[in-house]
């Protein structure tokens, strides 16, 4: 057992995946010599060589597009997009090619590609470095979208995503990369990739969070407990497909749900969760599903980001509104 950060957990997971299957390749800007701007691929080019850890020209469409060709040739490319806001030049390749090739080919072509994207805000960065693009990918059939909220999930989920035969958008909450350490037991049996997890029991309302907001939700639940409110917290982990079973179970018990994400509220994951929960738990709901998220404005200059991002107080405020309904 070792204590690792999320960055380290991911790095170890990538290494394991590369050891397990020599078809696994890493591609991206600065992933080689530098080990990535966040050092997630640190040391991997040294150990696996330039043919397997590939520094690419500065062109995201080119990276994803060539990764498609590699996958067609039998490789399992793991692409790093340097920051969330820079995935858009590759958007066409992702939604028209990566997502559709399996379908287009009637299942004859597999697209076992992982696209790693550090996402979310709170790091004091300039524009385009704090985006939350998950809803756009989750709206695209053919893609799967997952996110890890802690070092242990980082370690396991990246390996599972790489071993998976469909393309996976793998979102890494960059603010958590070096935030704190967790015990990693490499001999444990991991939770399945496409499953949500109940991470705190409660009875008054359910908080639904993923990636960077799981921590916020947990803190909110802690604070609420001090005020005598018992909040259940679910870490969604998989955003497409959604694993609604645990969510429905929980909401049927608590009667209330609050979704927390950094993405814009309008057409964010909260909208879909609200719609599905209402469809399935209509008679159990004591209040409408409430949503706490980034405002429907572009991500602001970083001096304002803590106002813009959903925080403990805004979550508690929503919980109160739900309880008062």
């Amino acid at each position, binding site marked *: 057992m070792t204590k690792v950060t999320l960055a380290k957990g991911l790095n170890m997971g990538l290494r394991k995946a590369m050891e397990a299957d020599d078809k696994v*390749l890493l591609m991206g800007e600065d992933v080689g010599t530098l080990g990535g701007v966040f050092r997630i691929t640190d040391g991997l080019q040294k150990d696996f060589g330039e*043919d397997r850890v590939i520094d*690419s*020209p500065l*062109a995201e*469409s*080119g990276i*994803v*597009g*060539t*990764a*498609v*060709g*590699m*996958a*067609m*040739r*039998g*490789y399992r*490319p793991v692409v790093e997009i340097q920051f969330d806001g820079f995935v858009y*030049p590759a958007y*066409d*390749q992702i939604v*028209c*090619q990566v997502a559709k*090739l*399996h*379908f*287009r*080919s*009637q*299942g*004859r*072509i*597999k697209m076992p590609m992982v696209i790693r994207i550090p996402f979310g805000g709170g790091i004091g960065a300039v524009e385009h470095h704090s985006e939350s693009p998950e809803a756009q990918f989750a709206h695209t*059939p*053919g893609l*799967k979208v997952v996110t890890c909220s802690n070092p242990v999930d980082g370690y396991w989920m990246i390996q599972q995503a790489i071993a998976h*035969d*469909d393309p996976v958008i793998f979102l890494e909450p960059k603010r958590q990369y070096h935030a704190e350490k967790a015990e990693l037991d490499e001999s444990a049996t991991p939770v399945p990739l*496409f499953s949500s997890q109940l991470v705190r029991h409660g009875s008054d309302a359910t908080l639904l969070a993923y990636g960077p907001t799981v921590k916020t939700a947990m803190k909110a639940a802690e604070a609420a407990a001090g005020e005598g409110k018992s909040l259940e917290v679910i870490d969604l982990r998989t955003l497409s*497909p*959604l694993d*609604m079973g645990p969510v429905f179970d929980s909401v049927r018990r608590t009667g209330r749900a609050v979704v927390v994400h950094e993405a814009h509220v309008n057409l964010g994951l909260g909208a879909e969760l609200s719609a599905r929960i209402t469809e399935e738990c209509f008679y159990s709901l004591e209040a409408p599903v409430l949503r706490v998220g980034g405002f429907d404005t572009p991500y602001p200059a970083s001096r304002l980001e803590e106002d813009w991002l959903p925080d403990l107080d805004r979550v508690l405020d929503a919980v109160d509104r739900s309880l008062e309904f």
Partner: protein
Amino acid sequence: MTPHDSGFGPDLVEVFGPKHEDGGPELIQLLTPEGERVHHPEFDMDFSAEQLRGFYRDMALVRRVDVEATALQRHGELGIWAQLLGQEAAQIGAGRAIRPNDYVFPTYREHGVAWCRGVDPLHLISLFRGVDHGGWNPKDHNFNLYTIVIGAQTLHAVGYAMGMQRDGVVGTGDPERDACVLAHFGDGASSQGDVNESFIFAASYNAPVVFFCQNNQWAISEPIERQSRIPLYQRALGFGFPGVRVDGNDVLATYAVTQAALQRARDGQGPTFIEAYTYRMGAHTTTDDPTRYRLSTDVESWKLKDPIARLEVYLKRNGYAGDDFFADIAAEADAIGHTLREGTKAMPDPKPLDIFDRVYSEITPELAAQRDGFTAYLESFEGAVH
């Protein structure tokens, strides 16, 4: 310093030469429009009579496939059809230069290359009929599915070629082993970011890929001048690899040049750009009306450069093929026409519920629920008049 002597070197016309309607002096040609065999200092080649007849047969038969599919569209059997009329030599020349281990990335118009790869034309027809997105298994033919988003496939081609490098099948010197990639695209496509990025990646990794651009002079209604003010093949020079312009209506030259470029790639010498200078004799697709944007005199002048006619003259004049041969081909073409017409009409429609199963390697629970709901919904109509 006057503006016109700005220090940026000679005028571009001097550097790149004036525009030539006929492809200019840089055009590599082995067979003239009149069916004369000419020689070229670098790309000359000997062709056997059998080979020549093979080229003719291929071109004549794919033209028939094309004509037949166009007619099927007119009769409402296909949603749309992208004609290859006029581009037979470019496609057969390239298609016959590929070896089995090579891999091909077509656009949506590579019916001639598909033919050379052994793809059943009915598999092309099923796409344009709306039955599927291409009926063949790419792996069975080393021929990718058609790509409709302009230029996207050129990056796939480079990635595939990078995979070949990693598989150790490039530059080993073993002709049975070495392989490479042929990437198709059009003159219009040359403006897409993806295509230019594919040049960058190919150059950066010295990938074994041949970029084969059919400059058919038009991107729907836009003439080539909108995309490039200099001959397209020169684009490659700016990325650090060779470019050549071949007469795309000359199957011999196209074959010779493509074969040499593919060999360069297999040998580990990296990418090459081939501009096959040709002309789209038909409409962009069956829904297009080219009379809105181009002169019929243009079309007429290109008819004189027909790729099949010139080979026919050459075969006949040199006694490489007699009347029997041409009669056989005509009969074969008729048989193909018949097969396509019957095959198209007999083609079963896809089944609605299939779509749910092919989205992921295994259906997800949420999609399965959607499928089940749809199944129940469909069953609710059993016997109903809907």
